[in-house]
């Protein structure tokens, strides 16, 4: 199966063709079976390939499959080649596995769409899976870039899926002192899609430059060839390459300062948010850095930038998530924050830990989004947590699965998120205690905001009775993926148990052929006691966050209201997303518009048009002036002639 790995990509692509071209004529059942089936089959084939790969000796676990020559221009040779190794197959399993569950869920979630939109949705979703699989299976940077752009295009298409919707105002927050804090409106899907696409372009611009620099430095784009030649390359060039590539990752994975598109991407249908904007596409940046780990190892400066950007983004997004009232946006900021963790991991060289967190995050964040989607489904698209409350009784399965997802996200001991986050914190501590402290603060905030959303939405008394009365549990086709993901979120930790427990770290061992020994173990190991201590601190912080949320939102619900008044400037600052969007609007959007205005009016119209118009006017006026000599009076002509002749004579005489 390993030699036919291209089938994994071809299957969803076939789904795109079938659903895209014929879907609307063939009915929902057909579309659902094709759409879900091809992804399920891709997962099965991916698992089969993985088993084949595992049967090989470790040293041979990299297979290249060249399908055909793609670009051959002079020295530039880029074949359409796929690479099956431990890392790419792992990503294939995560993408197709989580993707399969989300496709299944979508069948229920999108049931209210008409047949055309239903078919279109699955065609887009399948196209996304095919593109993402191409991204992770690519054997060279150019093919990776193709997949990278394709997933971006799918993201754009799916965010704007409900393109007819308008901006949604968010009700202002009424404070205890009678004043209000206005909240920014939620962007409409069409604009949100454009925003995501354009912001990503900025990052991709850097990525493309990085790819060019790789080619001009190494003369090849093939991963193995580049990595083999990398140690001989000058350090400055490697730093430039890795920073440029990371610029692409910053855009794709919504890190500061390009994080602004992800929260608005929540305008898309919830399965899209779960699949693309939580579990898979946004982790492409992490995958890319892990894939290029040889380069990042040789450029410690860039790796430090990666880790710092990740750490700061993690804290920033967690802080903003504290005050959001839109359930999906809370999860979106949480995604940005968790992606920050992953970048901390790959930045400090703990690639396996990063991939581990990527995997568990795919499980629990997909779960949380799908559960949030289930709530939206039940409440007819209401997403403001201030209108929820008490949903636990109406939607027991959704409540239970959301709880499990929240526990995993908060890092509750023994859940998947606990182990993966702890692994990262440990590696961060080895690298620098400051980075560890940053991660720990984020962990506290994470536990707090997650359980704030959970307590407000699911416990207590309903705040909006008519809405509450209408709420109902979602159909089995939606709750089944929730249940499977909940099990994964609960037990996914066994993939990477910490060394201190004495159990094997499965994911680190599996990825060792790709990352080498250092991927599995930190460069300077800490003592066993220290590791236990860090584990204990992580657990304590997670529990403290949850307890604080319980105290604030269940026991003493007046405290957050009073805090909002007391800390009004901070509250307003966070509620407005730290004014990042406004800053971009003022500097880039308005600035760009004014620059364009100036160029159009000042430069183009006044200067460039002015030169042409001025020349024309000069000739026209000069001509008009000259016609006055030709007044039709013969004596005047004769005078001109005589004067001319006279001048000629004078000239000839005095010459």
């Amino acid at each position, binding site marked *: 199966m390993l030699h036919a790995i291209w089938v994994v990509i071809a299957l969803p692509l076939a789904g795109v063709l079938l659903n895209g071209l014929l879907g609307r004529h063939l009915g929902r059942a057909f579309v659902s079976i094709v759409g879900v089936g091809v992804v399920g089959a891709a997962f099965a084939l991916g698992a089969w390939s993985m088993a084949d790969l595992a049967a090989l000796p470790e040293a041979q676990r990299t297979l290249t499959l060249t399908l055909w020559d793609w670009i051959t221009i002079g020295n530039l040779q880029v074949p359409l080649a796929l690479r099956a190794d431990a890392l790419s197959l792992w990503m294939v399993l995560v993408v197709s596995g989580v993707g399969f569950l989300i496709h299944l869920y979508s069948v229920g979630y999108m049931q209210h769409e008409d047949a055309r939109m239903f078919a279109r949705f699955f065609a887009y979703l399948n196209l996304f899976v095919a593109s993402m699989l191409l991204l992770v299976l690519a054997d060279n940077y150019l093919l990776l870039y193709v997949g990278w752009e394709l997933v971006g295009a799918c993201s754009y298409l799916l965010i704007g899926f409900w393109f007819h919707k308008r901006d949604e105002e968010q009700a202002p927050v009424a404070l205890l002192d009678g004043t209000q804090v206005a909240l920014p409106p939620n962007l409409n899907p069409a604009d949100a899609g454009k925003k995501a696409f354009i912001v990503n372009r900025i990052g991709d611009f850097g990525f493309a430059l990085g790819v060019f620099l790789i080619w001009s430095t190494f003369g090849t784009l093939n991963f193995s060839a580049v990595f083999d030649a990398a140690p001989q390359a000058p350090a400055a060039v490697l730093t430039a390459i890795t920073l440029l590539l990371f610029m692409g990752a910053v855009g794709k994975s919504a890190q500061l300062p390009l994080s602004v598109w992800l929260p608005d991407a929540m305008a898309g249908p919830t399965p899209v948010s779960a699949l693309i904007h939580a579990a898979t596409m946004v982790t492409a940046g992490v995958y890319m850095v892990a894939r290029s780990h040889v380069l990042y190892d040789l450029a410690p400066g860039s790796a430090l930038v990666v880790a710092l950007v990740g750490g700061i983004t993690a804290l920033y997004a967690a802080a903003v998530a504290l005050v959001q009232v839109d359930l999906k946006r809370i999860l979106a900021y949480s995604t940005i924050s968790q992606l920050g963790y992953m970048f901390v991991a790959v930045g400090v060289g703990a690639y396996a830990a990063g991939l581990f967190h990527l995997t568990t995050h795919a499980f629990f964040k997909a779960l949380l989004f799908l559960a949030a989607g289930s709530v939206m489904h039940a409440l007819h698209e209401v997403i403001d947590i201030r209108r929820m409350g008490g949903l636990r009784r109406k939607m027991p399965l959704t409540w239970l699965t959301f709880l499990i997802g929240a526990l995993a996200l908060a890092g509750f001991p023994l859940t998947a998120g606990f182990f993966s986050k702890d692994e990262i914190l440990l590696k961060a501590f080895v690298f620098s205690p400051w980075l560890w402290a940053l991660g720990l603060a984020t962990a506290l905030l994470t536990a707090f905001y997650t359980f704030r959303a959970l307590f407000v939405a699911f416990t207590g008394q309903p705040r909006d009775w008519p809405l509450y009365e209408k709420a109902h549990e979602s159909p089995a086709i939606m709750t089944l993926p929730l249940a499977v993901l909940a099990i994964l979120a609960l037990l996914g930790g066994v993939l990477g148990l910490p060394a201190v427990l004495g159990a094997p770290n499965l994911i680190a061992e599996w990825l060792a052929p790709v990352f080498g020994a250092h991927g599995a173990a930190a460069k300077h190991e800490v003592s066993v006691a220290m590791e236990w201590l860090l584990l204990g601190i992580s657990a304590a912080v997670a529990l403290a966050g949850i307890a604080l949320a319980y105290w604030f939102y269940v026991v003493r619900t007046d405290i957050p209201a009073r805090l909002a008044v007391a800390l009004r400037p901070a509250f307003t600052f966070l509620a407005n997303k730290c004014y990042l969007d406004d800053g971009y609007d003022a500097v880039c959007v308005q600035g760009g518009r004014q620059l364009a205005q100036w160029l159009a009016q000042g430069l183009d119209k006044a200067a460039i048009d002015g030169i042409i118009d001025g020349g024309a006017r000069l000739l026209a006026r000069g001509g008009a002036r000259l016609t006055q000599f030709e007044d*039709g*009076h013969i*004596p005047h002509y004769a005078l001109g002639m005589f004067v001319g002749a006279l001048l000629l004579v004078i000239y000839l005489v005095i010459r």
Partner: protein
Amino acid sequence: MPGVPTAWFLLLGAILFTIGAVGVLVRRNVLIVLMCVELMLNAVNLTFVALSRELSSLTGQIFVFFVIVVAAVEVAVGLAILVELNRLRQTADVDEVSELKG
């Protein structure tokens, strides 16, 4: 050489030419203008002939014949235009006719 010095002929030619030119410029009757043109041509003829005598060269006198022929043709065409103009406009004033402006 006996007789009138050449310079006098030249001076007379210049005076006649100037009178003719001024007449072309200031007179409004087309007939007078044509006569002034004739005067200018003949002033030139006088100059040619005077210099021809001075330089003992026949070239100047041959030129004069050409000029006389051209002048005759010019008078024929000019008078035809004048007659036509008078028939069309009942005027012989050059200032009345300014249709050919640019």
